[in-house]
């Protein structure tokens, strides 16, 4: 039996930390799920690099407007109070520190906050998109990821081995097993699945997990 959170559950957990009125950018793919789990009563405003603030759910199939897409090229809708703008203004929002949170996926995260999420090495076609801008722009840069690779190797490491997206940029990691902050160049454990011991978790983590206070139980609904 594999004890770990599903991607939906990781996304749910990340969504709980988004405060009311936050401006948020969700990376394409898995991070987009976070939008589904906004806690009731809190209003977040989602930004997409290609020039929309306050977009909403995808439209029903067949009703897509392909001029109304997000950075993942998926059709979206607008919420009241939306705005369109060009790419330079969009990245002024990003680079200028106007986003409260950016949530990205990761190949690797290091205890010094380095992130690798754009290139698996020299083979294939490299593609970076807006990731390198986001990691140096948003006030808080968080990562959501499985705790280990498909082969079971740690994704949380002392140092990244893959090409970097950004240096010292990540401050919180939501994994399938734990919630970990990055402080002073170290992984600080905040929450873990109750069924796991600290040793269990350390065994699948590539750098030391510090415990500086209470480690809360990571409890997430069935999703």
């Amino acid at each position, binding site marked *: 039996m594999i004890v770990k959170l599903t991607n939906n559950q990781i996304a749910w957990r990340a969504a709980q930390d988004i405060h009311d009125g936050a401006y948020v950018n969700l990376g394409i793919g898995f991070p987009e799920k976070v939008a589904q789990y906004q806690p009731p009563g809190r209003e977040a*405003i989602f930004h997409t690099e290609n020039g929309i603030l306050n977009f909403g759910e995808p439209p029903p199939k067949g009703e897509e407007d392909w001029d109304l897409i997000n950075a993942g090229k998926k059709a979206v809708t607008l919420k009241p*109070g939306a705005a369109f703008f060009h790419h330079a203004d969009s990245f002024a929002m990003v680079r200028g520190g*106007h986003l409260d949170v950016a949530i990205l996926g990761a190949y690797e995260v290091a205890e010094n906050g380095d992130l690798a999420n754009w290139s698996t090495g020299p083979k294939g076609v490299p593609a970076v998109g807006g990731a390198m801008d986001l990691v140096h722009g948003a006030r808080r840069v968080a990562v959501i990821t499985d705790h280990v690779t498909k082969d079971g190797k740690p994704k949380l490491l002392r140092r990244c081995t893959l090409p970097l997206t950004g240096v010292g940029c990540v401050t919180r990691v939501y994994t399938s097993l734990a919630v970990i902050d990055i402080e002073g160049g170290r992984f600080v454990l905040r929450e873990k699945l109750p069924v796991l011991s600290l040793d269990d978790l350390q065994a699948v983590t590539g750098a030391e997990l510090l415990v500086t206070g209470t480690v809360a139980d990571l409890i997430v609904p069935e999703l």
Partner: protein
Amino acid sequence: MDKTVADPATAVAGIADGMTVMIGGFGGAGSPIELIHALIDRFRAAGHPKNLTIINNNAGNGHVGLAALIEAGMVKKLICSFPRSAEPVVFTDLYLAAKIELELVPQGTLAERIRAGGAGIPAFYTPTSYGTDLAKGKPVAEFDGQSYVQERWLKADVALVKAQIADTHGNLTYRAAARNFNPLMCMAAAQTIVQATRIVPAGGIDPEIVITPGIFVQKVVAVAHPRQEEDLNRANAVYPGIA
């Protein structure tokens, strides 16, 4: 999300001594007169804020708005491109008496420095002012055989902005040439305070015609009948003292 605040006095209540304040407008067009006057009211009542650094294209005109702010003794330094006007006596007298500092910046460089502040660009190169007194002490560099001056971003603690319509999210439109520096200053301040002629619910502004997206705005206050600096000066108004 509702960024509306009750009145100008509430909107400017957090502005503290020594802050850097961007004030929108070019001459009287787009100048947030009511927000400026609320700031003067606070200073007269409480003695704060003072020692402000003000960023505006001009140095005010007559005895209202920015000129009145300077006249009240609240301004330590002015960063602007054109501190001359038809009736700039307030600034001129203080400047010639060395009682106010001036950083003179070419107008396009001023605009670009403010935008850079808002866009996270710490420095850029411009041909403007190369070889002139205004480039003294600034790094220069050559690109493709041309010489350029390095300029730094400008940021502020607060921006005071005049808009036409705002929605509750802070999306803004402007009116005619009252746009000028206002959208740039919205981007470059930690806290942007906007007076708008009308505040509508979210959804009340077509997303295609939003000039300043709400992400750049923290507070909006309705001023239904804003005064125009030019009209006030033609009526020889003095603040405090005008209706």
